[in-house]
């Protein structure tokens, strides 16, 4: 069956492309059936199936079913309070910090249901890094900020840390600006630099997935432009999911876009289609600015 071997080849390529360094333990024990479905969906990294999350009795997101593909940028757009951030934060279980949160359905990263009781949150969060809305560097030196994650992973050797810090800062396009004062406090950097530092900090744990929760909303247009350029570079290695209020931004950076409204996924498709020829009325109203 030449068709199947072609598919296998594609899968292998996309795995290589996605630069996996470590995988969640459970994903190694893939059954043939699971492998089949994985092929069928071009090996989605994140698979959400009827996933709902409730704060107490109030639903944050309802019945989300979507697959997020590796080595691309996926944008989540929608009006305020529609559950974009909630969904994003579900992917690395950041919502666990909020009391009375309950989930239903399945949300899998690398084939592993992350809401399984046995999920190791430390491993999950090392594979699914996050950049927040407001730059939130630690009140430590630039070096210590980036070395934080590797340090937790047990990297102690100075030269190894040095290497990771440099690679991460280069990856976040910040190295040239800070290479001479890595000992300086991170709080002395500008807002845009701080946000790139936070990206570097997330990259330093060597994640597969990078979640970005409105990463540019606190930044000026120049800093925003730099972060967007950065996303363009990072998508060859990482799976990026970005929540944004800025539709131009979504159109510029993303390959696929999901439109959320009132906690539900209304439409999910290629970004070009969402913006030029949306399938649903609500999506059209939103992207053309008639609503939201």
């Amino acid at each position, binding site marked *: 069956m030449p068709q199947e071997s072609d598919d296998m080849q594609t899968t292998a390529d996309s795995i290589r492309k996605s630069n996996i360094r470590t995988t969640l333990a459970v994903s190694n024990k893939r059954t043939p059936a699971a492998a089949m479905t994985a092929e069928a969906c071009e090996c989605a990294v994140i698979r959400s199936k009827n996933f709902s999350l409730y704060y107490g009795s109030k639903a944050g997101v309802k019945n989300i079913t979507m697959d997020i593909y590796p080595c691309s940028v996926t944008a989540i757009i929608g009006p305020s309070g529609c559950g974009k951030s909630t969904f994003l934060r579900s992917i690395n279980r950041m919502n666990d910090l909020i009391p009375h949160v309950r989930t239903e359905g399945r949300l899998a990263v690398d084939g592993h249901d992350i809401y399984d009781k046995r999920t190791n949150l430390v491993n999950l969060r090392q594979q699914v890094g996050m950049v927040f809305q407001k730059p939130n560097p*630690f009140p430590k030196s630039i070096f210590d900020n980036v070395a934080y994650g590797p340090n937790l992973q047990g990297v102690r050797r100075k030269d190894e840390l040095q290497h990771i810090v440099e690679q991460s800062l280069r990856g976040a396009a910040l190295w040239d600006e800070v290479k001479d004062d890595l000992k300086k406090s991170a709080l002395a950097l500008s807002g845009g630099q701080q946000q790139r530092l936070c990206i570097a900090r997330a990259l330093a744990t060597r994640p597969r997935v990078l979640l970005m929760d409105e990463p540019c909303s606190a930044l000026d247009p120049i800093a925003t432009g730099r972060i967007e350029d950065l996303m363009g570079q990072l998508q060859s290695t990482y799976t990026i999911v970005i929540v944004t209020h800025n539709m131009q931004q979504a159109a510029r950076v993303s390959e696929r876009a999901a439109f959320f409204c009132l906690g539900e996924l209304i439409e999910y498709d290629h970004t070009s289609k969402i913006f030029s020829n949306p399938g649903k009325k609500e999506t059209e109203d939103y992207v053309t600015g008639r609503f939201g």
Partner: protein
Amino acid sequence: MSNAQISLTLEPAADTRRPMALTPGEDFRGYLASHLGRAVLFLMTFTSVLAVLLILLFVILRSFSFLSGYSLVEFLASRDWRPTAESPVFGSLAIIVGSLYVSFAALLFAVPLGVLAAVFLSDILSWKARNVVKPVVEILAAIPSVAYGFFAVLVLAPWMQKHLGLSTGTNALNASLILAIMALPTIISVAEDSISAIGRELREASYSCGATRMETMIKVIIPAAHSGIIAAVVLGMMRAIGETMVVWMASGNATQIPHPWWDVSQSIRTMTATIAGEMGEAPEDSEHRGALFAIGVLLLILTFSLNIVSEYFLSRAKKATGKT
């Protein structure tokens, strides 16, 4: 359209309008209210400041005759305190050491306990439970110190004699333990405030790097809150050093420096207890009374400098968290 116009144009009520100029001639009532209010508030603030200044002045003046007539070196360096002897000696070293001794020993118990309790309250206990437990902890500060003193003398002292085999139950250990309990509410409360003030952003940043709760606490939150925690410790120290009744009742009041220095089972005497205990027996205008006031000056210097230190760290903590 016309409706909107009507609702937008609000006619000024002529009779309630008052002159713009706030002078006695133009608007007497307004002038009076504004300036009288200022004057009253100023006076009240000034009274408390004045009280502090007067106390300072009074204590310094009353100690002046003693300090000018007595050798300062002997006052600070001698450990003999014999105010009622034939030829009285006023060496306060043992008393100063006693005060510092019980305070530091109290901190040794109270700081680890207090900081851990603060961490527990801010990050481990649920918000609801915290709102119950924190006020209860703060009530500890409302118990009169004489009640703590009774507990020290009637419960802790006999217990120590019986179970630890000490010759006396009123000793440095007893006083330190009680002082620790009394300093705890201050330390817990201030430290908890500063740990909570760090906010969710840094915690989330740390968790998202794959840190556990303990790693987040030790590597991020406590370092970020360190100014507030130091302030908490200094405030607790102030409480311990200024405390009188408990140490008077629990310390045994022996003017000596423990030997060996770590032997907490020996009795000790503090500056506050010395002043409280001897002021009534020292004749007016005597050298003895002057010496007590001189100890008072030392005590004031000590607490004022601790106060300045704690203010410094509290203001740094506020700056660090960006809250004023």
